[in-house]
């Protein structure tokens, strides 16, 4: 007995794990009755169905031939995710003037073809200015331009 489809196996395992999570964290939800459904009725029924599909997928992975998972690309995924998270972390303390160039440069690292030259730097500056002008000044998105660390260092009117 050996695994014939890794894709089926892993997606099945994932479904089972997620379903178990929904069941566990929903264990205290009131079920109610069929005519007066409580908050737990629909999600818990769905979670059991998901569990069923997960088990089916795992069983099928031993029976039906499938493809391998193929190459994962942990690098671009990790870099893009890190860039977005960094942007979120830097936004309040430092503001867009720092967070946005960081977001652009870190995301660019996800591509092996990115070149770091004067032209690239100009693009980063241009895009940052564009976003500040269009989104913050133009559309009024309340993102700080200079964050809280700049309090007192720059005029308060520059910060928003």
């Amino acid at each position: 007995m050996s695994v014939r489809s890794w894709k089926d196996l892993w997606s099945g395992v994932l479904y089972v794990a997620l379903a178990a999570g929904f069941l566990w964290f929903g264990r205290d939800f009131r079920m109610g009755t069929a005519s007066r459904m409580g908050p737990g009725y629909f999600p818990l029924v769905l979670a059991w169905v998901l569990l069923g599909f997960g088990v089916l997928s795992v069983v099928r992975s031993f029976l039906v031939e499938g493809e391998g998972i193929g190459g994962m690309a942990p690098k671009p995924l990790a870099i893009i995710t890190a860039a977005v998270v960094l942007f979120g972390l830097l936004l309040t303390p430092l503001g867009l003037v720092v967070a946005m160039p960081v977001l652009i440069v870190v995301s660019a690292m996800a591509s092996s073809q990115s070149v770091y030259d004067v032209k690239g730097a100009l693009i980063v500056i241009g895009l940052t200015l564009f976003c500040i002008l269009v989104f913050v000044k133009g559309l009024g998105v309340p993102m700080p331009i200079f964050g809280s660390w700049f309090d007192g260092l720059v005029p308060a009117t520059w910060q928003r």
Partner: protein
Amino acid sequence: MELFDNLLLGFATAMTPLNLLYALIGVFLGTAIGVLPGLGPVATIAMLLPATFAMPPVTAMIMLAGIFYGAQYGGSTTAILVNLPGETSSVVTALDGYQMARQGKAGRALAVAALSSFFAGTVCTLLIALFAPPLAELALKFGPAEYFSLMVLGLVASIVLANGSILHALGMIILGLLLGLVGTDVSSGAQRYTFNMPELADGIGFVVVAMGMFGLGEIVANLEHEATRDVSIKKVEGLWPTREDFRRATGPTLRGTLLGSILGILPGGGATLASFGAYALEKKVSKNRHEFGKGAIEGVAAPESANNAGAQMSFIPMLTLGIPSNPVMALMIGAMIIQGIQPGPSVMKEQAPLFWGLIASMWIGNMMLLVLNLPLIGMWVRMITIPYRYLFPAIVVFCAIGVFSLNNSIFDIYFMALFGVIGYVFKKLDCEPAPLLLGFILGPMMEEFLRRAMLLAKGDPSVFVTRPISATMLALAAVLLTLVLLPAFKKTRGEAFVEE
């Protein structure tokens, strides 16, 4: 005549300078993102959603709709010129379109693509105007049981028409439904799966999920297959098709429009399936089938008319029932709700200018695309040559700002990143994100309708099969599901998605 009055109202609404301007902006942006690979209509509309808050509702809808069908046009341009379909719905267009371009007939292929799309757009505008009112009328009679069954049918149909494993599609739908339930339960006020985080009390934002899975997820997928795109394009000349081209393209355009219109109404159908189906159909019925794959004009006209028809007809369930048949329509519903309009069959009566204005704007938008795109070919071609390494950081930036501006919440930025990861992992396992997104938007609605139906029936589940409309829809869903599990059908379904 009522139809005439309605269309008149629509054109009067759509022809105001403001609405014309935004229709133009919409189709222009749509074409641009259609040309650029790696940026689809879902991510673009999600990004632009916050910018529409300040607009009048009809203007916002007109622009967002323009982006959607504009993308179908743009996608075919790159498919023909450089064999790079900008959208999945133009994948088959590349087969014969690119061959025509190599033979120096790029101009004629582009013109036929644009004209057949325009034809399909015109027919569909009329079809929507004809069929939407009776459908909305019928839908007004729907009770909660009918709505619940309709959603079941919609979700099942989206599996049948989706690409890939049925089991995985089912799993993704259920997972989407579950994720949609996160937040405060509307009828009891109970917190579900919020882990005491106030940010989750209102549920996970639909845009957050869409941007994570479609925006960021697609970037990562593109970077994986990063290759230097060597784009060398010959000068496009001879835009006007010959009489022979017209003659050969007429039949395929008619058949493509018909097929696209039918498939477009079905949930989960829409543009992509329509184009594949139309191409396959032409290969069976055409007199020139030996030329297919070698630059047959029929192979451009059929999928192009079909994908445009499919894209436009998918507005019907959205406008008349308030049910999204694809992720783009789900975003349109989100846009309506943000504007304070409750989607559903009453929209047509209560928001008549919006309803008819949107329909009329589609015809105007198609006209703009036709007039604009052929002369602007040179500009789109230059756009294709922008290297992806310059584009994707900008897309990440727009995603981050867009998702923040919905609720002015940094939390949403982190959640978008999380859904980017989830989307990527599932995609690697052949679990498509589209069914999850459909389930996500339908989850809370389904629960409410199920609750109400069961309350009215005093807990007797037979209500779903004793009410005729509801029973019909469930029966259809069952038939579809059985069909799709039959080995013979499975084979054809697989083939329909396989490129030649």
